[in-house]
C-alpha cells in the first residue's frame, strides 16, 4: 500500500494541487496531511476546500491551533491586521468561511493509523508538542525522549519545513517537509511517499515537485493578503536567511 504524507501547505493552492496530482500519478492509495494547512499564504479557502473535497485526512498544526484561538469578531480581527506578529493569522481567520472553520475545528492533534499492519503516528511538530522540531540530526536518545513509551513503526511529522526520512532506533522517521513554503533553499514543494510492505517494513522517499510560485506571489499582491513575503515562495528561503 502506498500513502502520500503532506505537511505545511500554508494556504498555497497551486502547490497543494500539484502535490495531490503527483501523489495520484505515483499511485498513492491515501493522502494524509500533517497540519499547517493555512496561514502565510494567499489561498486558505481554496486549500481547505480541496482537502475536504479530496477527503484528505488531516491533523491540526500549530497555525490552526493559534488561528482557532483568535477572537471571532471581525472587528477585533481587523485590529490585529496592523500587528506584524498576528496579521497573517488574522487575515486568514477573516478569509475563512463557516464551512472551512468547522473543518479546522474538527481536526485532531494527532493521528494513530495502521497501514498494511504497520502503526503510523502522525503529528505536526513532534509527539511532545506541535511547536517542537524534528530535524535530520535527530539522535536515538532524543527520539526516545520525544516518543516516551510509544514505539510506532513510522513517525510522520512536519513543521520544520526540512524534508528527510531516517530510521532511528527502529522507528522510521519521516518529515514531509513543506508542500507550500519550503525553506531549505529549494523552492520546489515536498511531500513523502511511503510504501507499506507488510509488518513494520516500509520504504520511504521524498518527492520534490515544481509549481508556479509566481502565481502565489501575484495573488498575495492582488488579494492584499497578510502573508509571508512573496520572495520566500520564489526563493524557497526565509527572507532573513539572506
Amino acid at each position: 500500500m502506498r500513502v502520500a504524507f503532506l505537511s505545511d501547505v500554508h494556504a498555497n493552492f497551486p502547490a497543494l494541487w500539484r502535490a495531490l496530482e503527483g501523489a495520484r500519478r505515483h499511485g498513492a492509495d491515501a493522502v494524509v496531511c500533517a497540519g499547517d494547512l493555512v496561514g502565510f499564504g494567499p489561498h486558505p479557502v481554496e486549500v481547505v476546500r480541496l482537502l475536504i473535497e479530496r477527503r484528505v485526512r488531516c491533523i491540526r498544526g500549530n497555525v490552526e491551533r493559534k488561528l482557532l484561538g483568535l477572537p471571532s469578531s471581525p472587528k477585533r480581527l481587523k485590529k490585529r491586521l496592523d500587528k506584524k506578529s498576528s496579521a497573517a493569522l488574522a487575515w486568514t481567520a477573516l478569509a475563512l468561511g463557516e464551512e472551512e472553520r468547522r473543518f479546522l475545528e474538527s481536526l485532531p492533534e494527532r493521528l494513530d493509523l495502521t497501514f498494511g499492519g504497520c502503526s503510523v503516528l502522525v503529528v505536526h511538530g513532534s509527539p511532545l508538542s506541535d511547536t517542537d522540531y524534528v530535524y535530520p540530526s535527530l539522535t536515538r536518545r532524543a527520539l526516545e525522549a520525544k516518543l516516551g513509551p510509544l514505539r510506532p513503526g513510522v513517525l510522520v511529522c512536519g513543521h520544520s519545513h526540512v524534508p528527510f526520512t531516517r530510521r532511528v532506533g527502529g522507528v522510521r522517521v519521516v518529515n514531509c517537509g513543506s508542500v507550500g513554503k519550503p525553506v531549505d533553499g529549494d523552492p520546489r514543494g515536498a511531500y513523502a511517499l511511503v510504501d507499506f510492505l507488510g509488518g513494520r517494513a516500509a520504504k520511504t522517499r521524498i518527492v520534490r515537485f515544481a509549481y508556479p510560485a509566481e502565481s502565489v506571489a501575484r495573488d498575495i499582491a492582488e488579494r492584499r493578503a497578510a502573508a509571508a513575503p512573496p520572495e520566500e515562495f520564489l526563493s524557497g528561503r526565509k527572507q532573513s536567511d539572506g
Partner: protein
Amino acid sequence: MAEPLPDPDPNSGGSAPPADAAFLLRGEPSWDRALRELKSAGYLPGPAAETRLDLLFLDTVEGRLARAGWRLVLCTGGRGVEVRTLDPSGSESGTGSPFDGDPGAAAFDARALSHAPEILGRAAKKPLVRILRLKVLRREVALQSPAGPVAALVVDRFSPPGPGRRGTRAHLSLRLPPGGDAATGRHLRVLLRDRVGLPEAPGDLLTTALRLAGRPEPGVLPPLACPVRSEDPMGLAARKIVALQAHRLDLQVPWALRDLHPEFVHDARVATRRLRTALRLLAPALGPRRAESLRRELAWAGGLLGAVRDLDVFLEELWGMERRLPEGMRLPPALVERLVRDRSEALEALVSGLSGRRFAALLDRLGRLAASPVPKGTRPAPPPTAGEAAPVLLLRAEKRARKAGRAVEPASPPEALHRLRILFKRLRYTGEFFEDVLGEAMGPYLQAVVALQDTLGAHQDAIVGARRLVEASEALAGVGAASADLLAVGALLQQFAASAGERRAAFSSKFAAFEKASRRRRGRTKGETFPRTPA
C-alpha cells in the same frame, strides 16, 4: 456544492480588486476538463448557449478610449446590431459611459455604423475608427452554487486576424454578475488557473486577438515616448516630448492623407505645431542647430496641412452660416465651387508632399533625435532636471502671455489678438508637455488657458473667414455675379463680423478667468522652491 464565500480580502474595505479573469483555451478537451473540475469543486455548470457574433472594436486613432480603460464594440448577431461599452473594470457598462457629457458622441449611431466602412462615429470630437473585426462563436455557461448563479463562463472562438494565421483560438472569460461575490470570482480564477492549468490571457478578447495578430494595442505609446518624470534630466525629458509628439504625427498623417474626416488633418497639424513649440522651447537640451533645422521642415509640413485645415474650418463655418441666412438666400454656387476646388488643390499638394521622401526623412530625423543619447552636463554642475526646469519655463511663457494679454484694449487690431493667441498656444503646450511634472494644480489652470485660446482662435477664424470671403467675392464680382449672390455674401460678412465681435467681447472675461486660475495655481504651488534660471 460550493458555499458562498466571505470576502477573503479584509484589507480591501469593500473595494476588492476585480475578480473577473480571462484565460486561453487550447481546444475542446480543455473546455470539457474545465467544466469537470469546476463541477468537482462544487460549481454546477448550466446548459451552454451558443451565438455567432460579428464584433467590431472601435477607438480613436490615438486609442483615447483604451487609454481610459474603455472598450467600444459594435456587436452584430444575437439581438441585431448593438453598441456595447465595457468599462474600465471589464464589465459591460450599465452605470457609466465613455460618452457621458460628450457632445461628439451624439454622432454615434449603431445603424449608421453598420454601413459606414471607415469612420464609425465620433467621441470627444475625434473620429472612431475600426481597430479590429472579429467573427466569434460565443458559448456561455452559467455556474450555479446553492445560493444561485455565481458567475458565467464565456468562451469566444475566433480565427486570429492577419495573413498566414490558420486555425481557431479560444478566449475564456470569467464574468461575475453585477454585484457578484468577488471572493467566489477569485476562487474560480485560482481553480481555472491552478487546477485546470489554463494559461492566463494577456487581457480581454481584443488584447488577445491583437497579440495573436502581432498588432499593437490602441493607445499604447512607444517606449521612447513614455511620460516625463520630475527627476528626468532635461535632455531626456525633451527627447521624450519629441518622441510622443512625433508618434502622434506619425499616427495621424496616414488617416489625414486618406481624407476621411477633417479631424485627422486637424490633429496632424496640431502635432506639427506642438513639435515646433517643443523644438523651440527645448532647443538648448536638444541641440539648437538640429532643432532649428527640424522646425523649418515642420513649418513646411504644417503649411501643407494648414492650407487644407483652414479651408475645412472656413467651409464648415460657411455651411453653418448658410442655415442662418434669410429665407431665399443661399451660398453663391460659384463661391462654393471655387472653395471646393481650392480645397481639392490644397489636398493634392498635401498628399503629394506628405507621401514623399521629404516627409519620410523628417519623421526619420525626429525619431533619431528622440533616440539620440542625452548629452552629459558640464562639470561640476549637474544638468537640470525636468522638475527644476519646467516651472521656470512655464512661468516664462506665462509672463509673456500675461503681459501681451494685459496690453489688449478694445481698439487693439486683430493682429494683436492673433499674436496673443500664439503666445497662449505656446503657454498651453508648455503646460501640457510638463503636466505630469507640474502636479495636480495644472488641471484647472490648463482648462482656463484652453478656454482663452479657443476664444482667440474663434476670433481669428472669423477675421480670416471674412477676409477670405471678401477676396472670393471680389473674384466673383469680376466675372459678373448675380446681385442675389452678392447680397448673400454681404449677409455672410455681417455674420463673420458679429462672430468676431462676440469673441472679442468674451475675451476680457476669459482673460480674467485665466488670471484667477494662474493666481490659484501659484497659490497651490507656494512653498515649492524654483531655481531662478534653468541651466
